């Protein structure tokens, strides 16, 4: 019926240093571009440059939670512990990024909107997404045994991902303070200056590499923990 394969040695540790180097390098490039190369915004001035942290972080949160979703499906489908390791790792990193990003967003909100926090759909849905995945981690923490924990978390990981499109689309709900989708729009090409767009793309790439690096580290840690458990068998 259910079969769980025993973790074996994997290739992650070998590629991790290279991932780290690539992530650091592209982060430097992205920062230089964001701080010096990209033009100053006509309306907001230089403060807008937080955008190059803000948007990649938001997208990374999305990515992290979509990966939790995919790994959850993978676990339910195959019952391979590898998927569970990916799910925890991605959820933890996602919660971390979302937390950072809530803080960074508030810091940006103060100068531009004049308040730290406001009840506005995207902000609230982002906060709810954060709470949801804190709940996901709580559910894991309170479960006591491996396969039950993995299965329960996977089910919740599948349900919770529904919030990702809701966050993305939430700005359309009500006329809001927050920026409407400018890059990822349903119709037409991005409404952004091309050098700004390029900077944004490079930042996005850099942050994705950072995510990948964190993931490889956290996944190996989890695999090692699983390995200790499985050696008893």
């Amino acid at each position, binding site marked *: 019926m259910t079969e769980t394969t025993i973790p074996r040695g994997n290739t992650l540790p070998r590629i991790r240093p290279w991932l780290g180097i690539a992530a650091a390098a592209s982060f430097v490039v992205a920062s230089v571009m964001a701080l010096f190369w990209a033009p100053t915004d006509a309306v907001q001035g230089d403060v807008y440059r937080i955008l190059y942290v803000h948007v990649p972080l938001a997208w990374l949160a999305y990515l992290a939670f979509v990966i939790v979703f995919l790994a959850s499906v993978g676990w339910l489908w195959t019952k391979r512990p590898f998927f569970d390791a990916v799910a925890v790792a991605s959820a933890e990193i996602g919660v971390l990024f979302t937390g950072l990003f809530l803080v960074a967003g508030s810091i940006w909100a103060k100068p531009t909107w004049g308040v730290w926090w406001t009840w506005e759909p995207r902000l609230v849905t982002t906060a709810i997404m954060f709470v949801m995945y804190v709940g996901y981690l709580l559910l894991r923490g309170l479960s006591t045994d491996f396969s039950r924990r993995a299965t329960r978390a996977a*089910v919740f990981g599948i349900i919770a991902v*529904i919030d990702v499109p809701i966050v993305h689309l939430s700005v359309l709900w009500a006329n809001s303070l927050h920026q409407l989708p400018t890059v990822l729009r349903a119709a037409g090409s991005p409404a952004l200056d091309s050098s700004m767009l390029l900077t944004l793309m490079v930042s996005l790439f850099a942050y994705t590499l950072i995510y990948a690096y964190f993931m490889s580290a956290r996944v190996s840690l989890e695999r090692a923990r699983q390995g200790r458990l499985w050696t008893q068998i």
Partner: protein
Amino acid sequence: MIDRVALVATRELRAERRQPDGVVAAVTFIAVLVLLESLVVGPQIARDADVASALFWLALAFATILATMRSFDRELEDDALEGLVALPGGRDALFGGKVLSLTIVLLLVAAIGGLLSLVLLDLPVALPLHLIVVVLLGVLALPPIVVVDVVLALRLRARAALVPILALPVLVPQLVAATRGTSAALSGDAVGALSWAGLLFAFAVVYTVIGLTIVPAAIE
């Protein structure tokens, strides 16, 4: 499959009738809420269509959580849940049966609670039929998520706190939709009411399908 779901639901409703914990608790809860609301907030604000519907749906969400937790607590006594799950097809019928019986209970609660709110707050209803449709669909959309979350938290410590944490954030969009829809029906916005009802219907369908698919896997 369908008749097994019906059997599980009947079993649940019977036990609920003997010990009507869920319904009574939920109805009393809503009644107190409405009373308190108008006593405390003052009739002006409480009679506002938005506020009244928001409180109604909040109360219904709590009532769902309360009733579902009670239902599964009863199921855990004497390992009755294992007796059900060990039956062939039991795992699959569990989700459907619980959702069905809870929906029936909640419809009852919503009807009583809704009437109470209308009478006590003396709310004018512009579109009664639309109101019924919105409330019906809003109620249909509640149990699937809550049942899934209660199953996930089964036998865990601190589950009284964990279930609301897991359920409420997921419920937010549909509670907003239900509130807006109810408020639209109360104030005579037919198009608004129907479009919110459509959204609620979509929620109900999506979560029911998800529940039917993955809950059997979660009860191992």
